[in-house]
C-alpha cells in the first residue's frame, strides 16, 4: 500500500516537473513575438549577418532599421512642467509621429517602449545592439532651454572612441558607443541641420554630452531634446511634433549613404 502511494507521488512529481519545463520554455519565447517592430513595405529584406557579409569586398550601406527610444516611462516621468506636462508622456506621442515619418522613408522602426513602461538603459541599448545596420534615436523633452527649439546630442568622447577594441576584437559593453562616435556625430549633424531649418534658435550642429543611454549603444546614436515642459500650453509641444518627426526622418535619410558597414557591424569609413 505504502509503495503504491510512493509510486503515485513520484508519477505526479514527474508530471508536474514536465509541465513546468514546457511552460517555462514557451513563456521565454513569448516576448520575442510581442517585440514592437514594424516592417516598412518597401524594405522587407530580413536583417541577417551571413558569414560572407563580413568579408564582402563591396562596401554596402547597412542602414535599414531605426531604434526609436521614447525616454523614461513608468514611475520615471522625466522632466515635469509646472503645468503638469510630463516628459515621459510627450515623448511617447512624439515617437508615434517620428515612427510614421521614418516608415514613410522606408525604414523599419523598433520602439524601445510602446506604453507607460520603463525598460532599463541596458535593455534599450540591447534592442539596437541586437540589430545590424541600425541607428538609435532617443527622444527627450527638457525642463530648460528656449521654448520651441530642439537640440541633438551625441555622447562625449569615451575611451575606445578611436576605434579601440580589446584583445580579440571585442567592444567593452559599458563603452559600446566608443567606436561609433564619428558616425553618431555625422548623424547628429544631419538631424540637427534639419531641426535648425524648422525651429529658429536651435543650434546648427550636434553637441556632445555624457548621456548614459547612448554610452552602451553599439550603433550610431543620438538624443533629440525638445524645449520644453515649461511651456504654459501643452499644445505648443504638440504643434512641434510633426516638424520634429519630419526633421528626424530626413536627417536619418540624409545620413543613410554615409553608413557603410564593412568588416564588423558599425565599421568606420
Amino acid at each position, binding site marked *: 500500500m505504502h509503495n503504491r502511494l510512493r509510486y503515485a507521488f513520484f508519477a505526479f512529481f514527474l508530471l508536474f516537473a514536465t509541465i513546468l519545463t514546457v511552460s517555462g520554455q514557451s513563456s521565454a519565447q513569448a516576448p520575442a513575438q510581442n517585440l514592437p517592430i514594424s516592417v516598412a513595405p518597401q524594405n522587407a529584406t530580413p536583417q541577417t549577418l551571413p558569414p560572407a557579409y563580413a568579408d564582402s569586398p563591396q562596401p554596402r550601406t547597412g542602414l535599414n532599421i531605426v531604434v526609436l527610444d521614447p*525616454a*523614461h516611462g513608468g514611475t*520615471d516621468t*522625466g*522632466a*515635469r512642467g509646472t503645468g503638469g506636462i510630463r*516628459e515621459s508622456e510627450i515623448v511617447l506621442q512624439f515617437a508615434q509621429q517620428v515612427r510614421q515619418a521614418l516608415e514613410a522613408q522606408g525604414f523599419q522602426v523598433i520602439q524601445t517602449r510602446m506604453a507607460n513602461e520603463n525598460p532599463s*538603459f541596458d535593455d534599450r541599448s540591447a534592442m539596437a545592439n541586437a540589430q545590424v545596420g541600425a541607428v538609435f534615436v532617443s527622444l*527627450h*523633452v*527638457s*525642463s*530648460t*532651454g*528656449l521654448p520651441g527649439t530642439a*537640440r541633438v*546630442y551625441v555622447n*562625449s*568622447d*569615451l*575611451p575606445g572612441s578611436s576605434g579601440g577594441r580589446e584583445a580579440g576584437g571585442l567592444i567593452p559593453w*559599458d563603452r559600446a558607443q566608443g567606436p561609433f562616435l564619428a558616425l553618431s556625430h555625422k548623424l547628429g549633424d544631419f538631424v540637427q541641420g534639419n531641426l535648425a531649418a524648422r525651429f529658429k534658435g536651435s543650434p546648427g550642429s550636434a*553637441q*556632445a*554630452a*555624457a*548621456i*548614459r*543611454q547612448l*554610452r552602451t549603444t553599439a550603433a550610431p546614436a543620438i*538624443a533629440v*531634446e525638445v*524645449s*520644453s515642459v515649461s511651456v504654459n500650453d501643452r499644445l505648443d509641444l504638440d504643434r512641434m511634433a510633426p516638424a520634429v518627426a519630419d526633421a528626424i526622418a530626413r536627417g536619418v535619410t540624409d545620413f543613410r549613404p554615409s553608413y557603410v558597414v564593412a568588416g564588423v557591424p558599425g565599421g568606420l569609413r
Partner: protein
Amino acid sequence: MNTRWVGMVLGGLFGAVIIAGLYFPILKQRVKQTAKIQPQSEEQARRELTQSLTPTPTEARVKAKLFWTSNAHDGSLAPVNIDLPLSNEPALRAKQVLNTLLAGPADPELRTLPPDAVLLAFYLLPDGTGIADFSEAMASSIPSGIESEQRAVDSLTRTLAANVPQVVRLKILIHGQEVETLAGHLDLTGAFVVSPRAAQATIAPQPDALTSPAI
C-alpha cells in the same frame, strides 16, 4: 516519567517566556536609543572629516573665476570674477570655490546648481581625481534634462579648471554613493575631465574618464 519530563519542559518554556517578557522592554529602549544616535554619529563623522578643511589665516584674497549661466540665455556658461579668500591647499581651495558656485550668482536665474544642494565633502586623490560628494538635493532638485544636467557639470568642471589646477578629473557622488545618472540623463558612473592635458598625461589610472565637452 513522561509526565515528569513534560512538566519540566513546560516549566522551562514558561520561565523563558517570563524572562523574554522582562527583557523585551529593555531591548526596545536600547534599539530606540541606537536609532537616535546613528544619524548624529554619521553627521559628526562627516564634520570631523571636513574640520581639517577649515580656513587657515594664511589664505590670500584672489580673483576666482566662477562659471554660471550667461546673460545671453542661450544655455552657455560665462565666467564671473569674484574676490575670494582661497587656501593654497588644493582640496580646501576646491571646496571653497565649489561652495561659492553653489551659493549662486547675484541673479538667481543664472544659477547652474540647485539652491538647496550642499557639498558634503571634497577629496583629492594623488592621481588628480577630485571626488565631490553632494547632498541628495543635487540630484533631486536639478531641472531634469540633458541641457540642464550637462550645464551643471560643465559649471563644476570649468570652475575647478580655472581655480584649482591640481584637479585633473571630477567624480561626482550623491550622498556618498555612486549613482547612474544625475537626474535621468547625465552619466555619473565615470569621472569628468577637468584638465584635458593633465588627463592625457595620466590617462592610465582612470580609464573611465568622460570628457566634459564644454572645456
